[in-house]
């Protein structure tokens, strides 16, 4: 399959020497659904803006439908639908005026899809001004504007941000209908793991400027687990993180929580063999927990390492964690 979206070694920083994206590489095939995950500030929006040609990468290349979004913006934007995280719609205009503008901009505009969506969202009164709409309604108008030209790629930057559960579900229903009927590829960023589960497909997790995880959702479920290893038995995280299949280990109270690629049963056996430690528990966890284990800060630290020379407790810091230094520890 040909890639419709391709990021290769993307680097971008906003402050000199502090890259937000530091070598991000992944691509999307036609009709594919990719959920872009990561903590606040992980660079999801930056990456999306680079794909939209709104930002230049400092290094690396981006190709959308094989084209550069900054060199051929019109050809690229014709085939993309985009709903930004903080969508700024012209507040003074009416729904009808805004839609008329999009209809004028996009020759492939589908009036029947427009009517259908406006009806579904209860936005049939198109003389309403944008500034009088609720947050959810404004987002729905933005979605109508983004999809009625039947794009090949729909990019949704936190479409559910700030929406109530019912509005989120309506948004999701529309996305799923588009998947069903149009085969639209969707790249979306979200903090709602349930929505990610429902939209399915592939998960790309950004952390520390890089892609930390890039796998099919089902594989993540069936082939990843969290191992809980007593910290009294294994002194430091590096010993765990160097084991094959380990993605990350972090201290949580008396245990290390380590994310492994493998089934719980296999990992438990492997750990008992390699570490010779009893009392290891391995469990499959929902996506939300996996997310926290992979990119969360060091959990509630208990002081195991005694006291340092200053008399202050020594907090252990496993390799690969970067938040401890900037975070106030409990």
């Amino acid at each position, binding site marked *: 399959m040909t890639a419709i979206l391709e990021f290769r070694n993307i680097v971008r920083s906003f402050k000199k020497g502090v890259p937000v994206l530091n070598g991000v590489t992944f691509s999307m095939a036609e009709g594919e659904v990719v959920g872009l995950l990561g903590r606040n500030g992980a660079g999801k929006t930056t990456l999306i803006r680079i794909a939209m040609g709104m930002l230049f990468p400092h290094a690396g290349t981006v190709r959308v439908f094989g084209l550069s979004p900054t060199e051929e913006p019109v050809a690229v934007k014709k085939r993309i639908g985009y709903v930004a995280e903080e969508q700024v719609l012209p507040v003074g205009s009416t729904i009808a005026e805004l839609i008329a503008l999009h209809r004028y901009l996009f020759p492939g505009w589908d009036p029947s899809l427009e009517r259908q969506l406006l009806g579904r969202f209860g936005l049939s009164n198109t003389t309403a001004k944008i500034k009088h709409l609720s947050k959810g309604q404004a987002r729905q108008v933005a979605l109508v504007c983004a999809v009625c030209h039947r794009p090949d790629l729909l990019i949704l930057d936190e479409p559910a941000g700030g929406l109530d559960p019912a509005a989120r579900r309506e948004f999701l229903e529309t996305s799923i209908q588009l998947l069903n009927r149009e085969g639209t590829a969707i790249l979306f960023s979200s903090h709602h793991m349930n929505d990610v589960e429902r939209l399915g497909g592939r998960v790309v997790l950004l952390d520390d400027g890089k892609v930390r995880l890039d796998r099919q959702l089902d594989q993540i479920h069936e082939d990843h687990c969290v191992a809980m290893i007593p910290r009294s038995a294994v002194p430091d995280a590096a010993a765990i993180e160097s084991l094959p299949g380990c993605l990350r280990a972090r201290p949580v109270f008396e245990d290390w929580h380590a994310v492994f690629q493998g089934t719980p049963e296999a990992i438990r056996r492997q750990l008992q063999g390699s570490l010779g430690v009893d009392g290891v528990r391995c469990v499959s966890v*929902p996506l939300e927990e996996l997310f926290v284990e992979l990119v969360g800060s060091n959990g509630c630290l208990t002081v195991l390492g005694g006291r340092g020379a200053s008399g202050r407790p020594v907090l252990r810091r496993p390799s690969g964690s970067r938040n401890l230094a900037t975070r106030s520890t409990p």
Partner: protein
Amino acid sequence: MQLVINAADELPIYRQIMRQIIEAIAGGRLKSGDKLTSHRELSEHLVIAPLTVKKAYDELEALGYIETQRGRGTFVSARVPEPDRGAQIEQIQQSARRLLSQAYLAGLGFGEVVKVLEQAGRELTEGPPAALEKPREKETV
């Protein structure tokens, strides 16, 4: 078909669908020859990706529970496979573990749990309908 999806479950959604359809077949709510909702329709009803439903249907078909007839739709197979013995035993073991930890919380000893089981078994075999009789018949066939 009444399916319930829990997106926050550790079980992938396609497995949740598979399990519920197999349960519906085992429980007689779905019978051989019954037509299933198309995967696209079901995807819109449940608000989950069409590929997820398709994966569940594909796996069920590979296991022999359902069959697709081109142009007509998807149906429950004429001969559905016998339930997987190993998986059933695994489930019973899980229930047993749960039962034992409940008993522990309630302060019951192992002997008392056995008595409870015996009592429950008597109630089942004496009272109608004899739920425990069924599997025994199957084994003798």
